[in-house]
């Protein structure tokens, strides 16, 4: 039994944490959110993204031949937690966990050659949509209502549930982008209208659609977990220094028990996230169920932690100057990426039912 990250991974993530804390403190996060509120779509925290590129996180999974660090899922997962901890306004989900993974698993040689080195250096940003593909030869006309990082992405992967995928270079005629105002300006989206643009087919093995969603769900779960632990830390620190009626707020039992409940949910989510990382890394048959459990428990833990951490701040909690509201917003936007908890819960029930029937059948 060795159900923990290795000391090497821990050392690596400790460095990522230090670098992110330096480059992306809450003032930087608020600055990005403010910017995103008034100039929707364009946002990216350059210092944070720079650190991630420099430390090999954007290219974590990219083999060294294309300039990446050639690391495993465990390493990337551990880094994702750090991204979530600082609530970094960076396109990690669309670009690193989705588009890059799609290229790695389903890209043609020339597609990889073209994009992976830039992705590794953090110079290119990718995005991804899960949608049916209705291409006319190599020309695609389509409208995607809310594409993550859609205003800044350099290319887009579109993948359909029947495991077809195309790649679209977004720097071409026929692409028009409409940045959107969103509830979490730290996770910007844009509407993309594609008018007879050139789309390049990808090599998509069977199971790609669900496989990439499962792995991205696990990585996003680590971001959420990072956000959830940080929200708890912020609430703990605040209530320990804030006084009311002559006592620290943290000394009230209702406050203590609320934080205990947050901690419990976070612990449960952590177990599932680790399990998901292990299953992704080893490509274990447990992956679909593990990923779904990781996704649901992390979404719920993050939303609970952020919501109640905000509550524990009292009035200051809903002001712009507080450090907690970016987490409240991020908890909502991450919960709705890749499909909501409801959908993943139903998937869990289906997978369990199938598992049960298989076992019952074997008996």
């Amino acid at each position, binding site marked *: 039994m060795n159900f923990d990250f290795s000391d090497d991974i821990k050392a690596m993530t400790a460095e990522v944490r230090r670098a992110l804390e330096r480059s992306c403190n809450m003032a930087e996060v608020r600055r990005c959110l403010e910017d995103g509120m008034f100039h929707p779509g364009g946002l990216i925290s350059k210092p944070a993204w720079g650190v991630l590129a420099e430390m090999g996180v954007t290219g974590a999974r990219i083999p060294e031949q294309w300039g990446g660090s050639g690391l495993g899922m465990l390493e990337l997962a551990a880094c994702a937690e750090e991204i979530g901890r600082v609530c970094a306004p960076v396109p990690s989900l669309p670009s690193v966990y989705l588009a890059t993974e799609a290229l790695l698993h389903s890209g043609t040689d020339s597609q990889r050659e073209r994009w992976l080195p830039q992705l590794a250096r953090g110079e290119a940003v990718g995005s991804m949509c899960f949608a049916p593909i209705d291409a006319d030869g190599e020309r695609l006309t389509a409208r995607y209502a*809310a594409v993550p990082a859609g205003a800044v992405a350099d290319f887009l992967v579109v993948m359909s549930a029947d495991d077809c995928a195309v790649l679209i270079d977004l720097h071409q005629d026929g692409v028009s982008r409409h940045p*959107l105002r969103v509830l979490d300006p730290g996770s910007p989206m844009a509407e993309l209208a594609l008018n007879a643009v050139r789309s390049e087919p990808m090599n998509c093995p069977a199971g790609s659609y669900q496989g990439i969603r499962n792995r991205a769900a696990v990585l996003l779960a680590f971001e959420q977990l990072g956000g959830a632990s940080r929200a708890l830390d912020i609430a703990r620190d605040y209530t320990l220094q804030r006084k009311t*009626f002559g006592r620290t707020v943290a000394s009230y039992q209702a406050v203590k028990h609320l934080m205990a409940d947050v901690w419990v949910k976070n612990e449960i989510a952590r177990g599932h996230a680790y399990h998901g990382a292990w299953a992704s890394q080893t490509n274990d048959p447990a992956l679909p169920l593990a990923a779904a459990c990781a996704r649901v428990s992390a979404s719920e833990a993050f939303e609970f932690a952020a919501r109640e951490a905000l509550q524990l701040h009292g009035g200051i909690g809903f*002001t712009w100057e507080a450090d907690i509201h970016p987490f409240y917003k991020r908890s*909502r936007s991450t919960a709705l990426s890749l499909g909501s908890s409801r959908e993943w819960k139903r998937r869990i029930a289906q997978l369990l039912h199938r598992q049960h029937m298989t076992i019952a059948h074997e008996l």
Partner: protein
Amino acid sequence: MNFEDSPQEAQFRATVREWLAANAEPKRHPRDFVGDGLPADQRLAAARVWQAKKAAAGYAAVTWPREFGGLGGTPIQHLIYLQEESKWRSTFGYFEIGIGMCLPTLMAYGNQHHKDRYVRTALYGEEIWCQLFSEPAAGSDLAGIRMRARREREQEGSDWMVDGQKVWTTGAQFSDFGLLLTRTDPTVPKHAGLTMFFVDMKSAGIEVRPIRQMAGESEFNEVFFTGVRIPDEQRLGPVGGGWKVALTTLMFERLTVGTELGLLTAQSMLSLLADRGDLSDPAVAESMADAWIVDEGLRLHQCRTLTALSKGSTPGPEQSIGKLLKARQAQRMSTFLMDLAGQGSLVVDEETDSLWSSVQRTWNWSAALRIAGGTDQILRNIIAERVLGLPEEIRVDKGIPFNQVTK
């Protein structure tokens, strides 16, 4: 048992309806107020006109005695007026605090001159009042305020010099006067060292700064006091007697029943779900039922409260139930509906009157509403202590001079 007006209530309602039909403009949509669409200053001017009309007819303060321009009516009559008015274009956010809380306090603790000078102008909307109680370090623990008022000279009747900061002041930016709670003696236990004043908001040394909320908008202010001079004549109640005056104000706050919180209702949720065709999903159906039970349950609870009111009782701490449930329910409902609709529901709906924009506003605002006007935790304390008679929280600062309580 019935939901109908009593004969007297029905008669009052008929009179009100007649007056509104003759004087008010029809509402074009649920959030349509007097001056809708105009710039802020013109909107306020239009609101003052409507307020003056109401005041002339006695409806600006139904429960006030006639000598102060009210109708000498009951809380139920006040509510009937509000129910009927809500069907017409009216105003919101300018006069409630002054007429609901500040002026009643002035009437209770002011002298004849105060009453003559300030009541009528406030009632007619000519002057607006705000309430300056909360401070950064004194939210739930209101008696912990620090804003310092010192006599300019050590003698009776001397002016006071005030320094410090207030926060969460609604309407400070357009208010003419403010009801101000200060600390005049930090060497006695916290409740004993407070004194109440009212202050001219245009006094030198007062600075109003909007507070930016998490969704980017500003509905409250911080108010900074630097060497603000207040004549002793503007003191309400004795020096050191401010806590009792504040309690009076807060008691009047409780009387402002039926305030609309502007949140998503179960009825709107039903519209959204029915339009989406989602109610055939049993999980959605159960959530819909849960939401309905809370909303409708609060309406029925309100009916019980009104029944008690009309039998002569005063509104008690039982009212805490409304905000406690409503705010959490709003947070749950808005989250649920966004979950159903998926990632697209993160895109801000620019049409401010749509159901979806109300879902989004509710998601942001419910987080604040679980705090503003008493946190969930404080409200549970109130219910536990004042309704169920359970022991009070242990107060470690009890009887200790304010300036000696561990900071």
